[in-house]
């Protein structure tokens, strides 16, 4: 618990702050106002990543290791932090870190500097040119600012010969690209950065990151208009899922969005929007009415333009791998869907995957449920529990005592709820979910208790606890309340979290599915790599084989791993599966094993056939699902497998 006394002490050493910083994973939750605290004032004012909590955490690491020298900007960055503490609250909810302490350490560091140590940065012709396009404030070549982009678009082990530019609209993006081409500079857009931060520790790094050139930070394209009259929304590239959802909800409408921090447009461009709502709201091009995009030559196009070449199709086959977007989506017209008055959540617990999968596919085919997924005990634990330790214990209880290994998780209207309840022996309702959320610390503490031992001896512990006589005791025992839950947080934050958890939405499962603030917890102080993809749902044994394969490979490279979720697509004809590997992103050895796992599982998946892997998913979200998913993928032949290896190796290098 040495971290705790770090956190409690007011003064903080550089080493200690770096220790915090290194645990950061660029989940990006400090850039959206998901707790009603307001946003980091300096980030909001200055825009560049460097001025946001996650940026400061990145910077301090590189100062420590002398990768970068102080500049004038560093002082501005350090001073721009008002120590308001918003970041501590936000970060604690997701990852239990204290970025403000890092900010304070950065201030101390700057104060200790003497002027001579501060390098001056020259404006070169490229920067001049960029500033002519976006204005002086919104383009920079300052190494400190650039350093803040490391790990979320810049590879940690490269030089920092980059420019960062923050355009305000599509026209500026177009000008930037034309300018970049003319000057023979590569460029890459950055939105939420999470996908990049997940890929960076792995072998995908070289493929995904920008090696040098112009980083186009899209945060300033924050147009957001809801059109209730046509239930659609115009969404700029700088808008995060959470922000769109919040606006939509004001009109009793819902958008199909990814994790809270993911930017809507970037999300369409990368994997398309993959969610538990996909079965009813669609996938790939289903999600939008139109897109505005800028191509690699800087031309501005719309998907509704007649003159352009077919924007809805892509080359078919396993070699069709793209490692960067072929367009920058600057604006999307998103479809919105009605939020019904009688929506509810119903979770059906299972002790084995097969039954859970059968149910979710059947529901998918019958069009039951708005949001529809199988969640593993792993996700359930990570999402629900306020910190890693509690999640671990919760997980063990699910796994070993109550045999709650999977839940079929349905958000639906009351009619569909009836249907699900009739199919299920018993289910977990809203109020029980609320109990689990607020009571999770207490539950975790029961890990080795008598109560659990007795429970585990029941022939159906799940029934006993959720539908049986023990429910009452259980609910009483957990005494689930905001007060209880708040206790797990640092002293100075307990009042705040009591208020937070008193808000109805924080324990409202429907709301949590729509706003998706919990998945960030998968990245708390560690990293997740979640391969998977879409698999034809016709052959269930095939699907189970596939999932086993992920487990086997995970074991082979002794990684912490678990199935994440399963959700039907395309009227239950396909299902999307995410299988997660968890690891410490600061450990190069494990990162290397993660890479091997990624490649091996991908290759095996391709050989199995009828699978559209994550690697093939990348950057195809703006096409018609009919052209991406059909015809069904056949298994690779020996020779194709050879080719696949060749390609990957010439791309990712031998290792």
């Amino acid at each position, binding site marked *: 618990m040495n971290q705790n006394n770090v956190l409690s002490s007011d003064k903080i050493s550089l080493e200690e702050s770096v220790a915090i910083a290194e645990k950061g994973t660029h989940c990006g939750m400090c850039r959206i106002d998901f707790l009603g605290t307001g946003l980091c004032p300096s980030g909001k004012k200055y825009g560049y990543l460097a001025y946001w909590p996650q940026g400061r955490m990145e910077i301090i690491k590189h100062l420590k290791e002398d990768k970068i020298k102080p500049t004038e900007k560093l002082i501005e960055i350090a001073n721009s932090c008002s120590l308001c503490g918003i970041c501590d609250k936000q970060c604690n909810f997701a990852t239990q870190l204290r970025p403000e302490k890092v900010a304070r350490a950065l201030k101390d560091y700057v104060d200790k500097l003497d002027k001579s140590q501060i390098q001056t940065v020259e404006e070169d012709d490229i920067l001049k040119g960029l500033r002519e396009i976006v204005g002086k404030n919104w383009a920079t070549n300052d190494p400190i600012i650039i350093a803040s982009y490391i790990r979320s678009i810049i590879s940690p082990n490269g030089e920092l010969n980059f420019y960062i530019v923050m355009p305000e609209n599509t026209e500026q993006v177009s000008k930037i690209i034309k300018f970049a*081409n*003319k*000057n*023979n*500079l*590569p460029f890459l857009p950055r939105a939420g950065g999470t996908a990049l931060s997940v890929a960076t520790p792995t072998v995908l790094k*070289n*493929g995904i990151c920008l*090696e040098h050139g112009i980083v186009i930070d899209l945060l300033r394209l924050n147009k957001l208009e809801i059109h209730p009259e046509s239930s659609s929304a115009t969404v700029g590239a700088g808008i995060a899922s959470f922000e769109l959802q919040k606006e939509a909800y004001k009109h009793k409408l819902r958008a199909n969005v990814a994790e809270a921090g993911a930017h809507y447009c970037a999300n369409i461009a990368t994997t398309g929007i993959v969610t538990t709502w996909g079965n009813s709201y669609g996938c790939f091009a289903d999600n939008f009415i139109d897109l505005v995009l800028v191509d*690699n030559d800087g031309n501005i196009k719309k998907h509704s333009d007649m003159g352009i070449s077919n924007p809805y199709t892509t*080359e078919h*086959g396993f*070699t*069709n*791998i*793209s*490692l*960067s*977007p*072929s367009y920058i989506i600057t604006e999307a017209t998103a479809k919105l869907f009605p939020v019904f008055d009688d929506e509810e959540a119903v979770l059906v617990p299972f002790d084995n995957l097969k039954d859970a999968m059968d149910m979710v596919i059947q529901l998918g085919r019958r069009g039951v449920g708005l949001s529809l997924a199988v969640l593993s005990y792993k996700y359930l634990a990570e999402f629900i529990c306020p910190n890693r330790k509690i999640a671990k214990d919760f997980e063990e209880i699910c796994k070993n005592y109550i045999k709650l290994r999977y839940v079929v998780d349905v958000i639906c209207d009351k009619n569909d709820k009836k249907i699900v309840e009739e199919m299920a022996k018993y289910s977990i309702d809203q109020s029980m979910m609320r109990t689990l959320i607020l009571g999770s610390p207490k539950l975790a503490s029961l890990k080795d208790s008598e109560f659990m031992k007795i429970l585990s001896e029941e022939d159906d512990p799940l029934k006993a606890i959720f539908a049986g006589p023990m429910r009452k005791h259980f609910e009483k025992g957990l005494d689930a309340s905001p007060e209880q839950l708040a206790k797990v947080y640092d002293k100075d934050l307990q009042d705040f979290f009591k208020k937070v958890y008193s808000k109805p939405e924080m324990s409202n499962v429907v709301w949590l599915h729509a706003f998706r603030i919990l998945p960030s917890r998968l990245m708390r102080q560690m990293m997740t790599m979640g391969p998977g993809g879409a698999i034809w749902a016709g052959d269930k044994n095939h699907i189970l084989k596939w999932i086993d394969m992920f487990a086997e490979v995970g074991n082979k490279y002794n990684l912490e791993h678990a199935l994440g979720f399963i959700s039907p697509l395309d009227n239950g004809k396909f299902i999307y599966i995410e299988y997660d590997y968890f690891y410490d992103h600061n450990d190069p050895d494990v990162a290397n094993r993660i890479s091997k796992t990624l490649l091996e599982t991908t290759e095996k998946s391709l050989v199995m056939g009828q699978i559209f892997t994550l690697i093939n998913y990348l950057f195809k979200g703006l096409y018609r699902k009919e052209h991406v998913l059909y015809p069904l993928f056949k298994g690779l032949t020996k020779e194709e497998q050879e*080719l696949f290896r*060749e*390609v990957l190796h*010439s*791309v990712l290098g031998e290792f």
Partner: protein
Amino acid sequence: MVKFLSEEWIEYGKNYILEKLDPEKDMKNITTSLLGIIEHVPPNDITMSFYLELKDGKLNDFKVNTGDSFQEANYVIKGNYGIYKDILQGKIGTAMALLKNRLQLKGSKIEALKIIKPLDGLIESLRDITDEFEE
């Protein structure tokens, strides 16, 4: 050592390929042709292209051409001067450049990727002889 796309470069390239690269081992006896279009060539921001033709792994034709008139080829790759430079300086592989859309490909990606390996051999040979670029 010579300058990218210069007369000598072509000559060196030809000879190097003929002498150093074994049609069977290195070039897998492939028969194909490739047109590389190079945009924004400094200092005058012109477009150039090189055309390369392999017959049974033997170099059949290799020439450079300035302007917007291009020759028909099985594969056409297009990109700016900078990316070709990166490739020839070994900063990025051809396959990678394709997958990152730095090089845009006309023709089937699958087919193109099949000849990536032998092409890499060729690129390497050119890499060894090219040291000078327009800045």
